[in-house]
């Protein structure tokens, strides 16, 4: 496991490279985390996912978006348009770091949405874990969790979200993607707003979409502050199967 900073010198991102346990690999997996409190709660699951992927012989990179985790930037500096660029930067970094030819992007919640919208070239598969497919539905969810949804800046489960931030979330539209990956896999553990429309839109573009429903703990929202260690092992196993 190799912790390091990468990317632009003035805005470096924190990353953890987990090398393939079986030697040289042609496949690299980039894990795109969710945002805010969800990222903290899901951290352990994504770390174990990386370990399991590397054990199966792929190169793995996890990273923090700008203004989140250990990456540079204040919490108010991070926003979806910046994070989209971060996904592209991290993808390129993984290619250079591990000299991989095949790239798989795995994203949890907003990380899944960003993995698709980043339109990373030569991505062979995108795996979405309970992604945000309907931005209006997501804004409504954030509004329910906001301390004062009437305020200009929302505080949502420990993290501030400006009007600009929310505007960028609201404008995220998966229908605008020009470069679609050839293969999309979705694992869901709850009813997912926008799933049917998304599947139809992708199939119209001849993109293969496979969806699997696994009833499992929603680790990104686990409400017990002392129970953050729970890991949905079945979901991780399915993602590893799809990515390797």
């Amino acid at each position, binding site marked *: *496991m190799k*912790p390091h900073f990468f990317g632009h010198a003035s805005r470096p991102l924190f990353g953890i490279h987990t090398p393939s346990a079986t030697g040289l690999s042609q496949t690299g997996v980039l894990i795109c985390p969710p945002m805010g409190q969800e990222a903290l709660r899901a951290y352990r699951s994504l770390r174990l996912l990386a370990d399991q992927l590397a054990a199966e012989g792929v190169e793995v990179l996890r990273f923090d978006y700008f203004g989140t985790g*250990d990456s540079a930037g204040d919490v108010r500096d991070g926003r979806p348009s910046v994070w989209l660029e971060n996904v592209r930067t991290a993808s390129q970094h993984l290619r250079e770091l591990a000299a991989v030819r095949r790239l798989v992007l795995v994203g949890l919640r907003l990380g899944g949405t960003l993995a698709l919208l980043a339109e990373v070239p030569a991505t062979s598969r995108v795996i979405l874990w309970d992604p945000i497919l309907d931005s209006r539905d997501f804004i409504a969810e954030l509004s329910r969790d906001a301390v004062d949804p009437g305020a200009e800046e929302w505080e949502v489960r420990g993290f501030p979200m400006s009007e600009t931030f929310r505007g960028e979330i609201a404008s995220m539209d998966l229908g605008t993607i020009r470069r679609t990956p050839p293969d999309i896999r979705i694992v869901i553990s709850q009813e997912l707003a926008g799933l049917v429309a998304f599947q139809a839109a992708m199939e119209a573009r001849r993109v293969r979409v496979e969806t699997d429903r696994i009833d499992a703990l929603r680790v990104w929202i686990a409400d017990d502050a002392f129970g953050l*260690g729970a890991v949905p092992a079945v979901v991780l196993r399915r993602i590893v199967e799809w990515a390797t």
Partner: protein
Amino acid sequence: MGNVTEEAFSERAMAFGRSQHLVGVLSMPAAVAAVSPPGIAFISSGIIHRVGANRIYVRLARALARRGSASLRFDLSGIGDSSQPDDQLEVSRAELEQRDIDDALSLMQREGVGPLIVAGLCSGADNSLATIARNEHVSGAVLMDPFVFRTRRYYVEHYGPRLLRPAAWWNALTGQSTAFKDLAGSVVSRFPRSRSTPVGDSSLSASTAPSREEFQERLEALIERGARLLFVFTGGLEERYNYRNQLFDAFPRIALRAHAELEYLPDSDHTFSRQAPQRQLEARIVTWYDTHFGTAAVR
């Protein structure tokens, strides 16, 4: 490959420790001082990784780095990105974590950081107190919502307002009240115990929690040594702490007020999830640090 670099400080991601099993981020101020000010080790709390609850460790580390102080935020064994060390089966979890903290402090010393301070929230605070009590190279500690003892006034504050509500008495008379059952339970439960038995705590198991006497001895030794302590209590753990000077009242026979500072943030939850308490916490720690360890204090 870059590090986080502002004009005032830079950050490096590192793997370190006796088994190279720990992961942390070292923040170093850009300016080299004639006398190196103390650096702070932020100890991960519970299962939350090194950025801290709601990223407060990152916020605090960078605020201190801009003022010239180094820090290391890191994950204990098996938490966040840290792995288990080779000696994981040889010792208890508590001892393992103390060895991890020693590894972190050794790293800071190798990096040229001067005196050392430890800081943490909840179990991170408990670990910090254990470290400063046994390691004389550590000269200060910031303890956020640490293990603490209840006092008589705690119970008055907790049950008093309920006893004044007519509805509470009606519920008691009709057998619907949980407050009265709780009060009776807590009174009864105190009789078989010695006065030194610690009252329930969520971050320390009963087997590892210090007794009141042990806790007091620890504090007395720190006072004798001239160690500087900052206790921060939030309103998030009302079942543990519910008025400003509860800590001082719990140890009336020692001169804790003269050596320890105390901040009570009743409007904050346990993890500082609101922005206003985060700002208050940052300002309080910076003031405490400047008072006792800043350039003026060092001179």
